């Protein structure tokens, strides 16, 4: 202990030789840059780069407070920290509050770490600990990281160490006993915290230099516990880390590098004291210069930020954003965000189609956007389970309640009991006349304290026979519920929409989807047969794509006698069609040669799709890349 005290005292001595008071400058600069800068950067990063609401939408795990749910966490290793993480994730739903919560917790880790390090050397040289905050940006690079899991582990690791160090000064045997017990508890409840505790205590004991042999108990204890974890079959769940997983890497980096960050300046100082750098005096000076050290820390901090920014999956952000916006029925923004994509997935495509449909643009803009390879209106969920929930929502809105139920349950199984799934299943069961089942989904939701109020209000609405009274879509879905019996492994587009139209011939949305499907399949005969239905649905003018299809039917499919009922084709459409035909003629009828020019001028028309099975929309990024 004397040795420890002496080193602490040495470190606290003012530097005699220095003309400038580096101590004061060190404090100020460290505080401003090493403390505030990482925290500000982290705040900025979460709030403006990653967006907490999108983090919630993509990553928030199911969270409830009832005992059966909590018990599932308590009976498995690392469970408590996962439960804590699930709880903290819920705050992201409230935007900036989530950001503040995460930043405060990261800062709390840094502060607890800072206090812990006083046990080594006093606080003045330890502000580099705040670089932890800089590493935290990695959690949100690809919307996979779990910051709270790391935070809670770091927090308990530091607190455990603090406890150990305080007691160590007074009673070494007792401190080792506590250490051993802590290792056991932490290994089960906060598995990664145990690593941190072990590293910190190890360094501390080596530093203090007494009764090191007692320390051997800890690794033995940890090994036994880990053996038990793996023996019980839980290992794969706890330590399943993939190299491409930025969040996990950040988590482990923080846990493992924190002690190194703490120690690095002291190690260099000791090296200087022992004369290792005598021949390289400028290094010696540099290492002892707090301004330079702070600049280094700032540089590291910024470097980390820009590194994370460089690797930030912006496209993934937009994909999540599209799903989020459509989920909240912000149709115009959904369509607008789709334009920012560099690559799209099935979820984005389904949500785009939903948005086009609800904003009344489906038959005007359908061929301005990409089509599925199989030309189906809905992608096959068998190959992509992530599409189940958007499809379930789409089916529900159209009125195909059973298929919506099917896919909502697939999503419930894979994504867990999140508010989105529970609410939809509640509505579906109400529409199916299963009121008690509908209430069960809402009661389940009420076990999440963040959604309790809403859930109880909705239950009360059901009990008062006014279910989802503020939900216009629910009323619409009720009106259009499918009543046509059908049994099969799956139902494809045309049958699907026809069933809805038979159930309720006023289902305009189903009609628009049917026409879009017929056009996508180039089934023009059937599409033209339905011309009368446009009158029934009170279309004032024919939608753009349908007009384009009429011209294809008349000219390319050679049905000049076809008249579009009471509708007159738009002059602008006719002029554009003339332009389209002239372009082909200019290339002597060669579709191959005309392709680029047609794409540039007519890439968003049905005519272009008719010949090339694709679209070319210059306002979309991924087309520009092509």
């Amino acid at each position: 202990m004397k040795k420890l005290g002496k080193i602490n005292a040495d470190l606290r001595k003012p530097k005699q030789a220095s003309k400038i008071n580096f101590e004061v400058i060190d404090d100020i600069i460290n505080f401003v840059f090493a403390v505030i800068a990482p925290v500000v950067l982290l705040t900025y990063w979460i709030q403006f780069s990653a967006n907490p609401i999108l983090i919630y939408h993509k990553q928030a795990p199911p969270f409830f407070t009832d005992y059966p749910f909590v018990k599932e966490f308590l009976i498995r290793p690392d469970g408590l920290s996962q439960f804590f993480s699930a709880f903290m994730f819920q705050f992201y739903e409230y935007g900036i509050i989530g950001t503040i919560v995460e930043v405060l917790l990261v800062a709390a880790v840094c502060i607890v770490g800072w206090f812990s390090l006083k046990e080594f050397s006093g606080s003045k040289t330890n502000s580099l600990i705040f670089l932890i905050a800089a590493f935290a940006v990695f959690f949100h690079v690809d919307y996979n990281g779990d910051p709270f899991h790391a935070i809670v582990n770091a927090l308990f690791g530091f607190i455990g160490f603090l406890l150990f160090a305080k007691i160590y000064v007074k009673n070494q045997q007792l401190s080792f006993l506590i250490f051993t017990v802590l290792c056991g508890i932490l290994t089960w409840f906060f598995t990664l915290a145990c690593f941190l505790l072990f590293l910190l205590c190890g360094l501390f004991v080596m530093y203090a230099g007494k009764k090191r042999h007692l320390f051997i108990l800890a690794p033995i204890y940890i090994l036994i516990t880990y053996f038990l974890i793996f023996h019980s079959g839980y290992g794969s769940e706890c330590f399943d880390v993939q190299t491409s997983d930025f969040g996990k890497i950040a988590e482990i980096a923080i846990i493992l590098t924190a002690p190194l960050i703490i120690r690095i300046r002291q190690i260099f100082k000791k090296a200087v004291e022992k004369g290792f750098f005598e021949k390289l005096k400028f290094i010696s000076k540099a290492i002892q210069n707090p301004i330079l050290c702070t600049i280094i820390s700032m540089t590291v901090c910024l470097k980390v930020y820009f590194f994370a920014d460089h690797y930030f999956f912006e496209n993934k952000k937009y994909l999540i954003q599209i799903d989020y916006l459509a989920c909240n029925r912000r149709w115009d923004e959904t369509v607008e965000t789709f334009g920012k994509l560099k690559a799209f997935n099935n979820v984005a495509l389904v949500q785009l189609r939903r948005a086009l449909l609800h904003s009344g643009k489906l038959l005007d803009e359908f061929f301005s956007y990409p089509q599925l390879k199989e030309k189906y209106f809905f992608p096959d969920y068998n190959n992509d389970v992530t599409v189940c929930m958007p499809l379930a929502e789409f089916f529900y809105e159209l009125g195909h309640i059973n298929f919506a139920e099917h896919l909502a349950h697939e999503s419930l199984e894979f994504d867990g009991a999140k508010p989105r799934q529970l609410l939809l299943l509640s509505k579906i069961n109400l529409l199916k006349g299963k009121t008690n089942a509908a209430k069960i989904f809402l009661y389940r939701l009420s076990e999440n304290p963040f959604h309790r109020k809403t859930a109880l209000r909705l239950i009360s609405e059901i009990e008062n026979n006014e279910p989802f009274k503020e939900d216009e879509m629910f009323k619409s879905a009720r009106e259009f519920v499918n009543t046509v019996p059908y049994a099969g492994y799956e139902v494809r587009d045309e049958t699907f929409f026809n069933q809805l139209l038979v159930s309720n011939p006023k289902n305009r949305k189903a009609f628009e989807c049917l026409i879009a499907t017929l056009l996508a399949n180039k089934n023009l005969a059937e599409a033209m047969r339905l011309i009368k239905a446009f009158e029934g649905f009170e279309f004032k003018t024919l939608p753009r794509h349908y007009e384009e299809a009429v011209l294809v039917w008349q000219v390319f499919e050679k049905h000049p006698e076809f008249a579009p009922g009471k509708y007159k084709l738009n002059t602008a459409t006719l002029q554009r069609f003339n332009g389209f035909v002239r372009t082909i003629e200019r290339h002597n009828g060669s579709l191959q040669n005309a392709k680029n020019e047609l794409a540039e001028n007519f890439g968003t028309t049905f005519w272009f799709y008719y010949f090339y099975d694709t679209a070319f929309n210059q306002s979309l990024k991924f087309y520009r890349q092509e």
Partner: protein
Amino acid sequence: MNGISKIKIACSLLLLIGNLFGATTESSPVKPPIFPDYADITIPPNIAPLNFLIQEKGEEYSVKFMVGNNVFHEIKTRKAEIEIPENRWKELLKKTRGAEFIVRISVFSNGWKEFLPITNRVANEEIDAWIVYRYLKPLYTFYHDMSIRQRNIESFNEDIILPSSRFDRGCLNCHTFLNQSASSFAFHVRKGKEGNPMILCISNTPSMVDKTMGYISWHPSGNAIAFSLNRLSLFFHATEETRDVFDEDSNLGIYRLDKNSVSMPPQISNPELIETWPCWSADGKYLYYCVTKKRPVKNYREIKYDFARISYDLNTDKWGQPEILVSSENTGLSVHQPKVSPDSRFVIFGMSEYGNFPIYRPDSDLFLFDTETRQYKRLELNSDASDSWHSWSSNGRWILFSSKRIDGLFARPHISYFNTNNIAHKPFVLPQKDPRFYLTCIHTFNVPEFVREPIRISQKQLLDAIYGRLRTLKPTETGLKPQTTEGVEHYGSKPERKSSQ
């Protein structure tokens, strides 16, 4: 003390005085609205407390447990959730074994309102203390998270026997016990590309049987297992109940554990017929099963199974001739899931409009077949929702089954007393510590089975068996080979993503 506090205290005092002296008790001519419905039932003398929720708004609740005219225990609470102390509950059951007790429920809201009393009867016969079930969400095509669990009926303790998360989120299928012994049981797992083996535990020693088997029934001698080989497909309806299952083809076979051989005897493996749901009689002399003619999927509504049996001599390995016991032509319904009582006298089976997958059929009911009189009757315990997956207790006095009667969607384990007059009493749902449990639980309890003692085998041992780290049995195939040589159980449109409910 501010004015509001004074008013509050004054109000409380008035309320108290009112309670003591002035408040009148109004009698309500209706039964108390409690959830779950634990009114007028017969319960085992060794069951956990029947905690319940009073679904009536009030400021205070009073629940009196009366033995004769005496109040045995009273609960006064401001919460509508009534949790009965376990020790007092046990004393109550002990005191009223073979007799009745009365529950009087009152709610205070502008005066006390007392509902009609509930009279519950405590049977003399105990129930098997443990049940084993699959715990999973209502599954469709994909499965991600399910487990086999055991629950002590005498308390609220529940253990996870095996969660699917321990083996790459595979599927766990119907578990079957040898004479309700928890040390010898079998279940089926699906590991995707790695195959669909059966895990066999004999005297707590697990091993893997490298053979896919569908529904299984353990011969009481322990030397043989009857199994079905089904080609099941999950399909969907656009209206009413969404899920349905079609069995394209199925035959029965027998796995002789003593010889480690599998055979498909022609008597129960007729290529023109679909034979499924095997179940041995308790004496091992008969194999009961369901049988129908093959039909294409488009005629799925016409597929109605008969109830049949065939005699078998284990020593000589000789089969008798199949005999139809209940014909679908007469009933107009389809039989499934026969389960023989421990004394072999009765068989409970399910019947529904068509098909053989009752959990998806809301019209599925349970029927009692008397092997002596060859008569059958609809059991009194049925509901409008699906009632299926039944199990006899080892003394034959309790029936455990899955019912969707509470909400029409989630299957919950229900228990019914089967008296000496062959009448099944009003069933009640398995009690839970939290009275609101079934209001918030979005999981379904599938294949509930009685066992006499807890399963003691560890997850690690079961996992070792699943991953082939323990003994792997490769049965030899004798006699007629199975008609289906690969995949065998097609459950869902694609074999690797099978539904499992």
